[in-house]
């Protein structure tokens, strides 16, 4: 694993950026200031961060409805993201997409997705284009455990392997599809086991360890770039918040949540970096303070931006 101190500090920064952004969105939603639903990524920051840290700008990702973390990790602008979540005209989708549809093709972000399992075919399409053009770019498809049971995901994995497409399927197994535990929705416990059926490598990693995610996805990306085809990385993790904000979470008990909070991926990384003398407590505070300022600017931008006008209702509609 070749990774510099600067890269590790960057990953620490990205994870904190996601955490602060999501915490703020949570507050706004509770205050009734955000239209529509939001699905927060708190607790899963290591996966998007570790995976996207292996990518180039021209590589693509497809995301899920829990997509804010992926977008931030791939370089999304907090101002444009926050404006979109507020439904403002200055947002990534001119305020018409909202949380679940943020896309920024220029950054390789092919969209969050309101369809469970919607990302696989899109990632395959991007990967097929890379392959056709002779480019060594890759597409990373983030998907949850619920999406793992969708036909689209299985079809995408099958086709990606059959055509040796440069796709990395990154599964975020947080144990629940909405309120249904995976023990009731799947006959298996490890989604990575399904990779063998498609003749691709499947591995399980600790999704709360950003370095483990980084190392595994790095190798999968290397394979994809070198024309060796797709891989499946299953990251075991947990979402601290409900499936959506407002979810009463009656399907899980507090002890379970607490046991995962104790495995906080950000604290885990911070402790490691401090033990190794890579990150001082002062530097850590500086990073968090700077992020807080960046976030405040994004909030101000979103609040001050105009809503789209009614005249624009039918613009940008293509389907």
């Amino acid at each position, binding site marked *: *694993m070749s990774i510099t101190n600067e890269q590790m500090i960057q990953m620490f920064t990205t994870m904190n950026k996601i955490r602060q952004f999501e915490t703020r969105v949570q507050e706004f939603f509770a205050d009734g200031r955000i239209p529509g639903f939001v699905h927060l990524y708190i607790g899963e920051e290591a996966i998007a961060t570790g995976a996207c840290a292996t990518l180039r700008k021209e590589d693509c990702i497809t995301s899920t409805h829990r997509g804010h973390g992926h977008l931030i990790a791939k370089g999304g602008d907090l101002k444009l993201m926050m404006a979109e979540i507020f439904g403002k005209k200055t947002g990534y989708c001119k305020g018409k997409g909202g949380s679940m549809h943020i896309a920024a093709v220029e950054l390789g972000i092919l969209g969050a997705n309101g369809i469970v399992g919607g990302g696989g075919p899109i990632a395959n399409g991007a990967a097929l284009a890379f392959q056709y053009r002779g480019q060594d770019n890759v597409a990373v498809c983030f998907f949850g455990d619920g999406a793992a049971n969708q036909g689209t995901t299985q079809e995408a994995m099958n086709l990606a392997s059959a055509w040796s497409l440069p796709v990395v399927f990154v599964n975020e197994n947080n144990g629940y599809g909405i309120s249904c535990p995976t023990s009731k929705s799947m006959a*298996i416990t*490890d989604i990575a086991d399904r990779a063998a059926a498609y003749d691709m490598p499947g591995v399980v990693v600790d999704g709360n360890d950003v370095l483990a995610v980084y190392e595994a996805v790095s*190798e999968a990306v290397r394979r994809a770039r070198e024309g060796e085809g797709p891989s499946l990385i299953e990251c*075991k993790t947990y979402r601290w918040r409900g499936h959506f904000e407002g979810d009463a979470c009656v399907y899980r008990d507090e002890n379970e949540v607490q046991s995962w909070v104790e495995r906080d991926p950000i604290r885990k990384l911070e402790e490691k970096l401090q033990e190794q003398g890579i990150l001082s407590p002062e530097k850590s505070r500086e990073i968090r303070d700077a992020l807080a300022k960046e976030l405040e600017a994004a909030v101000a931008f979103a609040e001050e931006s105009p809503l789209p006008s009614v005249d624009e209702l039918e613009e940008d509609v293509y389907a």
Partner: protein
Amino acid sequence: MTTAGIIANPISGKDIRRLVAHGSVFDNQEKVRIVRRLLMGMEVAGIQRVLYMPDEYHMVPRALRGCRAKVETQPAAIRIYGDQTDSTRAGSWMADQDVGCIVVLGGDGTCRAVAKGSARVPMLPISTGTNNVFPYMMEATVAGLAAGLIASGRVSHSEGTFTPCQLEVLRQDKVVDIALVDAAVYNERFIAARAIWEMEKVSQIFLTRARPDAIGLSAVGGQLHTIEPGEPRGLHLRLGPGGRSLMAPIAPGLIAAVSISEEAFMAPGVPVPVTTSGCVLALDGEREVEVRQGDSVAVQLSTQGPLVVDVGRTMAAARDRRLL
């Protein structure tokens, strides 16, 4: 009541070596099938009760649903975290329950985890991991018979078990960890995805056993010497330019060039210092111990490894005394 234990590791055989090498794939359903065959053998050999490590996949209950073995089963009363400490705590709990034998399904890493919790209970390790030097690649029906013969006492420990050597990791002169087959000094700062596969990052290797037909780091030593598991000597290799160059299968499907600059046999109880700081120590193929600047870390050979069932000798004793 004649009791045996089963520790089937649901996470063995799924690490990054499927990406960086060509590690075998053991999905959990295959492990269930192995447990079924194991139970059939155990029942015939006289096991009445099986204690098992619980897991999310419910491997032992699933196995029971698909076979006719009539044994009483009970899950270990431990909390499951989904990591290797489960195997250690399950082994320790089973030792407290006086099981006569523990069958382990996993690789070298799983066997090490169990040994940390139950070194004095005979272990019968079956391979379902990646680099499998310690566990047997064998048919589980026979393993079940052998486990039953040992657990019931019909074949004694002196007839059917042996005590291999193990490696002890010393930090500031205190034993902090063990390895059953190999320890390697790996030039990485973090444990991350755990496995090791880049030989240019290995500066020292410590081995309890070496054979030319082995896989993993043991194969590197095996190109120089043969050291059988019960022999009271180990091997310390220092890697670097200027010495003997050789090729060895260091992981499934991965054969690497290695240059040995120094080699020496290890005697029991004599610590060999780890001479790199800012590295990790990989134990039985997995990065486990972070070594920081200023740490004093050493590795020593111990003749007090875990008690292991010798299946061949056990079955031969059963044949000679017409026990089956």
